[in-house]
């Protein structure tokens, strides 16, 4: 215990917070099954679990967004009632949501002041709020301009606004819901510096993540949830990444997929000076030059919104190019219809699998023939061959281990992992020459992620040219043979896997040119 029990913000600490026997039922699901969880002042307690394990449910109960069916919450040993976010804020609990809760068209000060009583009664007191923001920012080492509009800020800065918002409300305990998911590696480092500072000052932090290396790096204790039940809590120093992964999934998981050696063939997909617009009317791609060879996975790394979506859509013919050429196995396919491109055996695993990858209200069997439904043997003279379609579906369900009650189940009723398996099955089974895989494991749990990655590596072994577009740097590093970093619609550099480090890629992702990268690395 330090000499004072106050936090730098002047509020009292929460020495301990305890959740006991928390149970929450949703129709048909036990989202939280008598879960115990606790956080102390001055520690980072990581909460690990796959999608649907009940992490968010538990934290939403703590923040007052959900009401538990059973169980109690104690602060400093005394039971408390939390029935709304207001209650939890008043008790000193703050939450940094995964999707920022900020109003883009308002300033930092306005966002912070929102919902708080004003010192000027009915009128806003933004000057006073701004002054206090600067005070807090200095105390915690967060740089922020109170008069800036949210839309002008980078993702990392927006996250700082969220932290300030919580501190301003006197948060002694902060819940960080997957705070690193949207950050570059450098921004993650900065966040960790801030988190360490807060812990030293006596805050308690709950850190939700499924990136194991981050959990190992930042947390003091770690708890694992699986299927709504608390599997256990351990000191982080007593565990390894491999332990945690097995614990989370409930079985042994292969941690780094075996890539094996594959001979690189000639280029199958070439992009020459490809340019296109974006949905906002600004340039989406500004002259992209990339080759993808047979038997190679080319990773496309970058911070979200730097042209990834446009890249996938121009190659697949879904978006018009404004310049340059897309060449598939020597043929210029620029401006071709998506169906013509598909027919040349280019497969596409789209980023938004629920929106672009399948039709939610179609059955599993129907979704499996979406791409080939006009071809033999699935249809003839415009009539669907239902027997063949059923046989095909059963075969794929078996081959790709799709967990579904039947081939007639509507896709929307399946889990994200199984939906992705259907997309994968459809796109791989037709023995493509090129695969464009956009965020293929986003939102999937460890088991499904592992499966998708193995399948992509298997395709690579078959000599397919694969472009892997991912915002998950760990995934890029685990799978790619070469890594192209895109920034504002341009390729910053293409780095062979052996020379790629998270730090190097991170700088490129932030728009720092390769020459500058070399200089900085010399400095260090």
């Amino acid at each position, binding site marked *: 215990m330090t000499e004072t029990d106050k936090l730098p913000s002047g509020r009292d600490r929460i020495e301990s917070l305890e959740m006991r026997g928390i149970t929450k039922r949703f129709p048909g699901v036990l989202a939280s099954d008598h879960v115990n969880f606790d956080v102390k002042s001055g520690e980072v307690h990581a909460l690990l679990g796959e999608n649907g394990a009940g992490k968010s449910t538990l934290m939403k109960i703590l923040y007052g*967004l959900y009401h538990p069916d059973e169980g109690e919450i104690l602060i400093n040993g005394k039971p408390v009632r939390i029935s709304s976010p207001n209650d939890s804020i008043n008790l000193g609990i703050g*939450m940094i949501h995964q999707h920022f809760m900020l*109003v883009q*068209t308002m300033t930092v000060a306005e966002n912070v002041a929102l919902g708080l009583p004003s010192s000027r009664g009915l009128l806003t007191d933004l000057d006073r709020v701004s002054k206090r923001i600067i005070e807090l920012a200095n105390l915690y080492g967060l740089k922020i301009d109170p008069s800036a509009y949210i839309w002008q800020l980078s993702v990392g800065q927006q996250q700082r606004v969220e932290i300030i918002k919580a501190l301003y409300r006197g948060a002694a305990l902060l819940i960080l819901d997957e705070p690193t998911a949207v950050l570059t590696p450098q921004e993650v480092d900065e966040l960790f510096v801030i988190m360490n500072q807060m812990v030293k000052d006596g805050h308690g932090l709950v850190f939700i993540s499924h990136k194991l290396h981050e959990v190992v790096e930042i947390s003091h204790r770690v708890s694992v949830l699986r299927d709504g039940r608390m599997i256990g809590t351990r000191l982080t120093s007593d565990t390894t990444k491999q332990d945690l992964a097995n614990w989370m999934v409930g079985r042994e998981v292969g941690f780094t997929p075996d890539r094996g050696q594959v001979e690189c063939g000639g280029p199958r997909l070439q992009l020459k000076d490809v340019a296109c617009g974006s949905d906002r009317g600004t340039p989406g791609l500004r002259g992209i030059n990339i080759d993808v060879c047979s038997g190679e996975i080319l990773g496309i790394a970058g911070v979200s919104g730097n042209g990834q979506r446009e890249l996938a859509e121009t190659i697949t013919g879904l978006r018009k190019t404004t310049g340059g050429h897309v060449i598939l196995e020597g043929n210029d396919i620029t401006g071709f219809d998506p169906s013509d491109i598909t027919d040349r055996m280019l497969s596409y695993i789209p980023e938004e699998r629920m929106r672009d990858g399948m039709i939610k209200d179609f059955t599993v069997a129907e979704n499996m023939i979406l791409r080939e439904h006009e071809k033999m043997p699935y249809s003839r003279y415009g009539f669907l061959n239902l027997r063949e379609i059923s046989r095909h579906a059963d075969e794929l369900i078996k081959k790709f281990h799709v967990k579904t009650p039947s081939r007639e189940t509507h896709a929307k009723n399946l889990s994200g992992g199984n939906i992705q398996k259907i997309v994968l099955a459809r796109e791989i089974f037709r023995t493509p020459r090129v695969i464009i895989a956009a965020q293929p494991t986003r939102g999937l749990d460890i088991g499904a992620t592992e499966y998708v990655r193995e399948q992509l590596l298997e395709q690579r072994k078959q000599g397919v040219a694969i472009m892997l577009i991912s915002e998950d740097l760990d995934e890029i590093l685990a799978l790619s043979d070469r890594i192209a970093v895109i920034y504002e619609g341009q390729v910053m550099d293409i780095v062979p896997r052996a020379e790629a480090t998270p730090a190097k890629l991170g700088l490129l992702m932030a728009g720092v040119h390769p020459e500058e990268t070399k200089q900085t690395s010399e400095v260090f």
Partner: protein
Amino acid sequence: MISDLFTVTVLVGILASGIRLSTPYLYAAIGEAFGQKSGVLNLGVEGQMLLGAFAAFYVALTTGSLWLGLLTAMIVGALMGLAMAYVTVNLHAEQGISGIGFYLFGLGMSDLLFQKLMGTVETVKGFPEIYIPGLSDIPGIGKIFFSQNILVYGAYLLVPIAWFVLNKTTLGLKIRSVGENPDAADSLGVSVSRIRYFTIILGGTLSGIAGASLSIALLNVFQQNMTSGLGFIAVALVYFGGWRPIGILGGALLFSFINSLQLWMQVLSIPIPSDIAVMMPYVVTILVLVATVSKVRAPSALSKPFERGD
């Protein structure tokens, strides 16, 4: 003759009646702007105005009290707003469609009540002009700005008040946040439902005043469907004005001045087909809208029902 238009008397007349004609637009559009700023599109404004106009007229006619008429119009508008709020906030109804429903309800109900309670067109003596001492004696200006009825002054006072509430008060901050990102507001303990109830009921009340300004201040009669699309123009003015009270004022004035101009042209028997003349305000509005495609974005959560999601 066209040259008749350019005498001082006629120009002052055009401007003075332009100011007067903008009254209902200002009340209705500023009420609508509050709703839209909080994320609710209310297409029922026209219906609220019609019922407000009838209520004000009927009460004024039977009791002889214009103020009681105005109060009744406000209550009727507020009740319509309350119903709209329940349907859109609690029942998560599609806002555009339920708004049209409320319009048709107001249209039919005001007509029915008119038939049952009055049957024939009657007139009342509306709110009198109030001459502001001193200022109303200024030549031209005095007639245009300072010789109007109380509802006209009220409408012009409403513009800065609305701006102040939206931009300088904690309530305004809440309204804007609820219209832009209700999830964020909710996470900070702002009640999205309460704010939306407030703005929709406020909008209904102002629409009621807008209707009353027609029936007991401007025209001093009640007729079936007497608003004839005015409420929909008010909704358009909110877009036109970029969700800002000052912009709405500009739009309302432009529209009313041209309307006033065409009325005077008909009065002066300037040889323009009346159909063309009546079209003028609408055509100019469309042209201005096209020319000045607003750079201002609509509130992000406009017409999206809010549900605390996962």
